[in-house]
């Protein structure tokens, strides 16, 4: 009962402290701003994807009507023959998107470091220059975007600090503590009750903010569980800081000493540890300049083209045994052309091999970061929020894997159909569009 009274009485303390009220207000303002920022990025990316989808559909309709009208050779491009799989696939206009999740409202994460629209061609790779990220001010990216996860991860510990910094130490400084101990029986339960008020207040504010964020982009609990996960992680995060501050307050004797310790803890967990991990990583594994991939794009690519056509044909047969008894083998003109147009498959193999060490190096960096999570909690929570919002590195790695998968499919379909000397009609063109977009789960 006494604890409940203490808990309820804390409300009076709180409302009578303009400094604490202002801090809470600032946190709410920053969080709302962050939620709107997240919603803005989500809506912007979604609009870009929709616009591109619409453009692709319009282009496709033009080619579809060309098939319907039997106009297989465009007037301005006499070298094109849309009856061949080569041009039909080229004009199938296959794009792959990293569709933003509505949960992006909570964390923009790494979404601004990667592109999210990619045209799939037989020459494409997930590391092409056209997959550059959205245009943004690098200084803003460096300063960091104030999204909701930033407010939660970096401002809520400060808010909690402002709310609890003088609990117990003020009473100790003013000499009230013996009186409080007599009245309450236990100093610890009195401290817990007072702290619990602010912890619950912060959790309540977070729930309200998260719910408000959900209304901005339509995050559905049933479909993604994102809402529940964000709430859960926010509680866990507040609990982590509350425990840390509680331990400091419990042993502290003066306001300045407690504040110094709490600010010190904040600096260590929010700044020093993540920064040290990043610094160590950049010494052990400096930024990759992708030389293996660049080699594949330049020199080694030409090495493939320098090979005699029949050597390339042998390699293609090894990759696609189905073409070993192709009808094209009887027509040297067609065969030469087929080998030339299929060489992209060999380049694709080369590119994939050159990408592998790059991705392995990236994976090693990620594994290292994950290993630090037990003493690097801010980074852990940051990545958890990014995961929920589907703006984590892994989400973009999946996107890159999907791009590669679609490139592989496109090359396979092209080679099998081209070497089978297939003729493309309207029905086949429509089928291409479906097949070339389909991802294996």
């Amino acid at each position, binding site marked *: 009962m006494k604890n409940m009274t203490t808990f309820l009485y804390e409300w009076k303390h709180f409302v009578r402290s303009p400094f604490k009220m202002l801090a809470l207000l600032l946190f709410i303002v920053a969080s709302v701003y962050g939620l709107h920022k997240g919603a803005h990025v989500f809506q912007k990316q979604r609009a870009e994807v929709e616009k591109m989808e619409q453009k692709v559909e319009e282009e496709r309709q033009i080619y579809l009507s060309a098939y319907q009208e039997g106009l297989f050779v465009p007037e301005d491009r006499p070298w094109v023959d849309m009856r061949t799989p080569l041009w039909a696939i080229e004009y199938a206009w296959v794009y792959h998107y990293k569709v933003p999740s509505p949960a992006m409202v909570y964390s923009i994460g790494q979404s601004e470091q990667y592109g999210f629209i990619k045209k799939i061609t037989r020459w494409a790779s997930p590391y092409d220059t056209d997959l*550059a990220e959205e245009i943004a001010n690098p200084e803003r990216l460096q300063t960091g975007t104030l999204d909701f996860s930033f407010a939660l991860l970096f401002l809520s510990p400060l808010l909690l600090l402002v709310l609890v910094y003088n609990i117990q130490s003020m009473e100790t400084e003013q000499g009230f503590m013996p009186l409080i101990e007599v009245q309450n029986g236990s100093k610890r339960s009195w401290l817990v009750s007072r702290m619990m008020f602010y912890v619950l207040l912060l959790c309540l504010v977070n729930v309200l903010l998260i719910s408000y964020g959900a209304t901005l982009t339509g995050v559905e609990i049933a479909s993604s569980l994102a809402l529940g996960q964000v709430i859960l992680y926010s509680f866990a995060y507040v609990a982590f800081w509350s425990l840390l501050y509680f331990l400091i307050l419990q042993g502290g004797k003066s306001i300045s000493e407690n504040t110094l310790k709490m600010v010190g803890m904040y600096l260590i967990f929010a700044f020093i540890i993540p920064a040290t991990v990043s610094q160590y990583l950049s010494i052990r594994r400096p*930024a990759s300049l992708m030389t293996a991939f660049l080699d594949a794009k330049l020199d080694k690519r030409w090495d493939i083209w320098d090979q005699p056509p029949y050597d390339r044909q042998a390699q293609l047969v090894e990759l696609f045994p189905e073409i070993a008894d192709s009808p094209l083998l009887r027509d040297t003109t067609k065969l030469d052309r087929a080998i030339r147009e299929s060489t992209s498959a060999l380049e694709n193999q080369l590119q994939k091999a050159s990408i592998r060490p790059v991705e392995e190096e990236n994976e090693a960096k990620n594994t290292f970061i994950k290993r630090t999570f037990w003493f690097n909690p801010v980074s852990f929570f940051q990545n958890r929020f990014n995961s929920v919002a589907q703006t984590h590195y892994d989400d973009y790695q999946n996107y890159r894997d999907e791009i590669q998968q679609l490139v592989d499919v496109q090359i396979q379909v092209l080679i099998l159909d081209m070497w089978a000397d297939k003729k493309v009609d309207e029905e086949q063109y429509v089928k291409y569009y479906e097949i070339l977009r389909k991802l294996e789960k």
Partner: protein
Amino acid sequence: MWQIIRNEWQSWMRNRTLLGISIGFVAILCLTIYLGYLQTEAQSERYQSARQHLRHQWENNREMHPHGAVHYGTYVFKPINLLSSLDEGVSSITGNVLRIEGHVQNEIIYSEASQMQANSKFGKLKSSLLLQYIIPLLLIFLAYQSINSEKQSGRLKLLLLQGANPIQLVLAKTFAVTSYGMGLLALTILSYALFHLSQISAEIWGRTILFFCSYSLYYFIIAGFTVFLSFRLKNTSLALTSMLGLWIIWTIFSPHILMSSVEQWHQLPTREAFKKAMKEDRAKGIDGHNPRDERRKELEEQILAKYEVDSLSELPIDFGGILMQADEEYGNEVWDKHFGYIREVLGEQKQSYQLGGILNPFISLQNLSMGLAGNDNWHHQAFLVQAETYRRNLIKTLNDEHAYGTIKEGDDYIKVGPEFFQSIEPFRYQPVPFSATFPIYGLNLTLLIMWSLLAGLLLILGTKNTQIL
């Protein structure tokens, strides 16, 4: 005043906790410089090896048609800046690799940040992280403690009764705290100089000295405000928490809000809109690869008239090279327009953000710090412009060879080989001279000076009107 400053230093030296903290700070600062040095070395090694590899590849290219070489192209890498040990700025955010080829101005890609999952929102453990975020906090506690201890022990009243000038007292306390920050700063710069002794030029010294001055001004502002509040407010805890609140607003809250807002005020185009606009403009010009292009015919007629011949086969030159260069020059105008617009918007964003220094001196310091370290967006853009100039010269050289070069005996068309490729100079980034940075960062420096004057004025006027006795 000197006596008070000396006394302050003596009392700090006697305080074991503070002495421990100070030693810890000095060790961490030296460690950050050492780690920064190791990182610079590791990254430079990777840069040099990649650069040499690509150059070797370029110089030993197979024989090919000059236009083949235009498409073959090469890559340039962004070098690591020596001052990155102090402040890395935007380096880990921007890409490191730029594709150089004909017909297109590419964008820099493969940033360090994109090669791993998110880890640190405030960058790596660089000196700037400690100097910007952590040392000011230490100064706040020091300045607060300095006045608070005088008040609590009653020494403040005693000193004033004995005839001490209150203005001199607060100024001396402020200078003493500032000098503590400057001491840590000086140690940072010194250890930086020690690690990079052989590479430091007058240019770098100039930047480092201004770096030192900027941080010193900021430390004076922090110390001044804290001393003022601690002296002025009866409740010293309130002074401390107010100053901490100010620190939160200045360093965590407002830079993020302002930077995000600035991007809203001066909006950059979306990637797709940017590409579409360039494609549309590009389509209006000559298309070197389209034989049916009308503008190509116009150029053909002009060249035939110039050489007074009737057909392309009669020309003493290869019309293809002229055509490709005309295509390139038109393209360059398009890139200048669109990339120029992006640079313009980024410039406007920077200026607006710099003006935020009127309300927040931390913004001025942050701008100055990464600018003087040569790692802000302005320096990054300077690298991109130089790389683009190199691309244009390289492509022009190849197109000129295409147009005016001679076909060797036994060949069907002009070919260029290793000898020609070796004659082309590699890309060498020329760092922006220190003198050129003044117009950009003058505003930041002015605002920091204004803030320092304001802090000084507050101390003088505020102390005059305070009743201690």
